[in-house]
């Protein structure tokens, strides 16, 4: 008898789970639709033309072409191994730090070749900030975590004000204003990640790149960071890598979907872009069946 009920319960749970997932996704899109949509800017921040990245000659992503628009949140989604992180690291030349990595093709930043001979990657990174997958605060006080960037870049102004502005901008000020001298490692993971965002906006960049910023965080912290992203996009352009499709649906304006391709003998794998469009279109009416399979959870 009992075993019977168990099986039934399992089946019920599975069904409920499935519909919850579907509801969650449709809810996420509904919420996104409710949010007052501004006229999205079509001013281009980045233009990628046939960008390929190789590690030791082996391709990691191939022939990526799309544009990133100003004051938009642009999401890169796709299965693991599709080169999302590799691609986002091209935007601020972090791939330069890996000696074996080579970037081919063209990335224009406000119309200028980001990989041109006159471009200093250090100068480029001042304008194009980055938040990493795992929160990586410096082993210093909260105050000095923020002050490091402006000080290093020789920014003028009252440092206390710069720190307060950055912490307010990252919705962290009220939580930490009484303990600015405490070590950042005493904060929760979500607070650490918002500290990293504050650190990033303290140097007043133009673009913020986020490489799976919520993958190490709990749902509540994730929600706070997503709310924060909406506020930040008024001031910055944001590119986010995420493996969480609901998150992409909730936060982004534009979505690029990448897949993994294998060569004939399955020795090499690389990422390729399938579709790039308005987020709403990608999640409700994608033009490529592979995108549809992925966003509805049939594969991946």
């Amino acid at each position, binding site marked *: 008898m009992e075993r019977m009920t168990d099986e039934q319960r399992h089946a019920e749970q599975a069904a409920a789970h499935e519909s919850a997932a579907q509801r969650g996704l449709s809810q996420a899109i509904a919420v996104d639709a409710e949010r007052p949509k501004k006229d999205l800017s079509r001013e281009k921040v980045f233009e990628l033309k046939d960008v390929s990245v190789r590690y030791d000659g082996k391709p990691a992503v191939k022939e990526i072409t799309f544009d990133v628009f100003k004051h938009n949140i642009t999401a890169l989604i796709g299965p693991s191994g599709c080169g999302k992180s590799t691609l986002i690291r091209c935007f601020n030349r972090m791939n330069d*730090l890996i000696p074996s990595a080579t970037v081919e093709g063209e990335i224009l930043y406000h119309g200028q070749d980001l990989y041109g001979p006159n471009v200093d990657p250090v100068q480029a990174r001042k304008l194009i*900030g980055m938040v*990493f997958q795992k929160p990586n605060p*410096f*082993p*210093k006080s909260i105050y000095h975590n923020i002050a*490091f960037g402006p000080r*290093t870049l020789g920014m003028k102004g009252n440092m206390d004000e710069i720190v307060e502005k950055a912490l307010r901008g990252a919705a962290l000020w009220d939580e930490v204003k009484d303990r600015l001298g405490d070590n950042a490692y005493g904060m929760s993971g979500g607070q650490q990640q918002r500290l990293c965002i504050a650190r990033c906006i303290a140097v007043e960049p133009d673009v913020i790149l986020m490489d799976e910023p919520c993958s190490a965080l709990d749902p509540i912290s994730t929600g706070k960071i997503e709310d924060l992203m909406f506020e930040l996009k008024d001031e910055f352009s944001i590119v986010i890598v995420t493996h969480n499709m609901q998150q992409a649906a909730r936060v982004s304006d534009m979505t690029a979907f990448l897949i993994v391709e294998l060569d004939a003998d399955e020795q090499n794998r690389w990422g390729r872009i399938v579709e790039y469009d308005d987020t709403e279109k990608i999640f409700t009416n994608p033009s490529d069946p592979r995108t549809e399979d992925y966003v509805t959870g049939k594969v991946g």
Partner: protein
Amino acid sequence: MNDDPPRTERTRLAVAGARATTEAVISGQPRKDVIKNTVFAALLLVAILIALAGLAALLIQAFVKGRPELSLDLFTESGSSDPTIAGFRQAILGSLMLIGGVIVLVVPLGVGAAIYLEEYGSREKWWNRLIELNIQNLAAVPSIIYGILGLGFIVRGPLDLGFTVFAGSITLALLVLPIVIIAAREAIRAVPPSIREGALALGATKWQTIRRQVLPASISGIATGVILAVSRAFGETAPLLLVGAATFVTFDPQFFSGDYTALPVQIFQYATRPQDEFRILSAAGIIVLLVILLAMNSFAIWLRNRYEQKW
């Protein structure tokens, strides 16, 4: 357990059988294995006890023998041929000046080399691998070899500094440099790459990243390595005998000129004299040396535990 469906006789039998078999497999350790295990554990214990016994014998013997001479006068009285008034004043001063010079020389050289190898030198390049290998080798070179190098190149030869504290410092600095480099590299490597990425992503240059994030984060590890290396230099005798510290001195040493001696050398000297009083004095000197070394090592351990960063 109450919810279990009633068992038939057959299941009960099967369960009992399975249980018994499992017990037989996991619980019955062969008697031979038990004996082997016990014997092996006992042998390991003996190995530790022999090492500890050696240390204990040394300490007890030095303490019992040196006790009559153990007083603060040891630090203030000069070296003398009269054992009743002889002390270690010059030797202690000489040793302190020597290690002072070692610290000044070895910290910038050792940390600089470590930064190069960890942050700039790509392991792909054969010359960097060669440098690394040779630093490992240098750490294993006997100290008397450094003494001969010091005599040939620093005291005489190209540098021609004479038998001075300065020459002794350079020799000892060369001796402990590989240890400092290895320890500093270890400390720098312990700083996770995410910290460097975080700083670089803000638009800091490579040097700014190293200077303001990597070095401050690794400073306690580097300091620990330096203290341990310096305590090794403090106890070194063989190279100093060659570079001139063997002289019997009754006046305070100077850094750049004049004769000097060092604590371990003075202990060696007193120990080789025929009078029993000097042997006692030498035992007292050993206690002073050991106390200073233990204090330095304890400080290094304290420093490491106090400022150790949990990433």
